[in-house]
């Protein structure tokens, strides 16, 4: 038998694809900014923060790391309204992605923090820096530099994971593919194209972050 593929039909719906890409990248950007902030704060708590906070943070990290993203998303979007907490699909998606990257990022950054040589902290102490200054200026930047490749990989994983957000009608890329396939009946082609776009986005986001890290995040 012959299989006829028609990619052109899919491309006729290109504005939907563009919207999808923008949503996917936007959600990823929010996850990076907020999620990494959460991760740094939690990593601080787990390494030198107060004990009473360390335990709930550890519980949060393990809970997120040991349950599927899709279940977390469903719980936030379908489950929480039972408690009167209602989010729109994009907000629920954003929260789920942030919590997810926050948890994985905590473990990654924590490993970097733990690798700080003791002498670095002693030198900073003897220069009369405060605890907060030591963490933000002396300990954190080299730690981020050390674990940046792992963080970038995790960010890419989270971005690809955001495809699931289409399941609650967030209009990201996989959702666009869904709609186009319904409109054109070119299901396979729509998914092939969306997948190819994801691949390009993954490569782009990876090189962008590898480039940006040393320039904006932790210095040379």
């Amino acid at each position, binding site marked *: 038998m012959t299989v006829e593929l028609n990619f052109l039909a899919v491309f006729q719906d290109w504005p939907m694809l563009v919207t999808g890409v923008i949503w996917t990248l936007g959600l990823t950007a929010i996850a990076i900014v907020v999620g990494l902030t959460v991760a740094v704060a939690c990593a601080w708590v787990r390494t030198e923060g107060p004990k009473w906070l360390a335990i709930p943070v550890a519980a949060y990290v393990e809970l997120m790391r040991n349950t599927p993203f899709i279940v977390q998303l469903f719980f936030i979007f379908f489950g929480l309204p039972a408690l009167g907490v209602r989010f729109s699909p994009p907000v629920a998606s954003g929260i789920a992605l942030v919590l997810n990257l926050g948890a994985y990022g905590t473990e990654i950054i924590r490993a970097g923090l733990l690798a700080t*040589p003791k*002498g*670095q902290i*002693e*030198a*900073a*102490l*003897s*220069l*009369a*820096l*405060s*605890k907060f*200054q030591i963490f933000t*200026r*002396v300990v954190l*930047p*080299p730690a981020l*530099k050390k674990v940046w490749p792992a963080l970038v990989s995790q960010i890419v994983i989270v971005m690809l994971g955001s495809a699931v957000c289409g399941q609650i009608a967030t209009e990201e890329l996989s959702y666009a593919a869904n709609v186009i396939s319904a409109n054109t009946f070119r299901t396979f082609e729509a998914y092939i194209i969306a997948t190819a776009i994801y691949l390009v986005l993954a490569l782009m986001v990876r090189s962008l972050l590898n480039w940006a890290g040393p320039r904006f995040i*932790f*210095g*040379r």
Partner: protein
Amino acid sequence: MPLAAESHAVPTIVDIAGLRKSYGSTEVLKGIDLRVARGEVISIIGRSGSGKSTLLRCINGLEMFQEGGLSVDGKSLLYDNATAMRELRQSVGMIFQSFNLFPHLTVGRNIMLAPTLVKKRDKAAAEEIATKLLERVGLEDKFDAMPDQLSGGQQQRVAIARALAMEPKVLLCDEVTSALDPELVGEVLRVVEGLANEGMTLLMVTHEMNFARKVSDRVVFMHQGLVHETGHPSELFENPKTTELQQFLSSLKD
């Protein structure tokens, strides 16, 4: 006669009295009394494990001690009070065996960090301080270099400049040449000697006996957690009174 004159005319800057410290059940400092006059250069010598580095690290609060008192410039060391600790550390600089430069900052930024954060100097003023100090340690062309681009000797000189940027009243040197290749020792010692000649109060733990003899006003020999013998370098090195010091000095000659 000169001793009396010294203790009255020159104010004490570091005052250590009955200081005891233990790690668990092992006591490493067993009651140290030491007064350091302003401008005095003191070398602390002794075998490894005699407690000399620990003593030095107690002076700026990197180690906690259990008994006794320690004050710098009239201010007692209070571990529980973060503000007081920072205040004390502003007047006590420290240079480490392993340099401990911040690897992610340029040489210039390493020096500027504490003046801008702690002393709230603006960037231009801090930059000026850093440039001057780099000149002083002979590294004026390394402002924008990263630490890992420098030799050990250069890194240690940057570390000295970094400590000086806080205008400390006392400078603690913890075996500052021990991690260096032999040919790089001289350049660091020359900088330290220059500081001694300019009247900086220096407390150094060192294995460089010739250097200790040359620059020190007083040498302190530590043995098993106590100040065992102390005196002017010529006296102490030529006529050691205790057998422990005699043995220590002769062990160095082998």
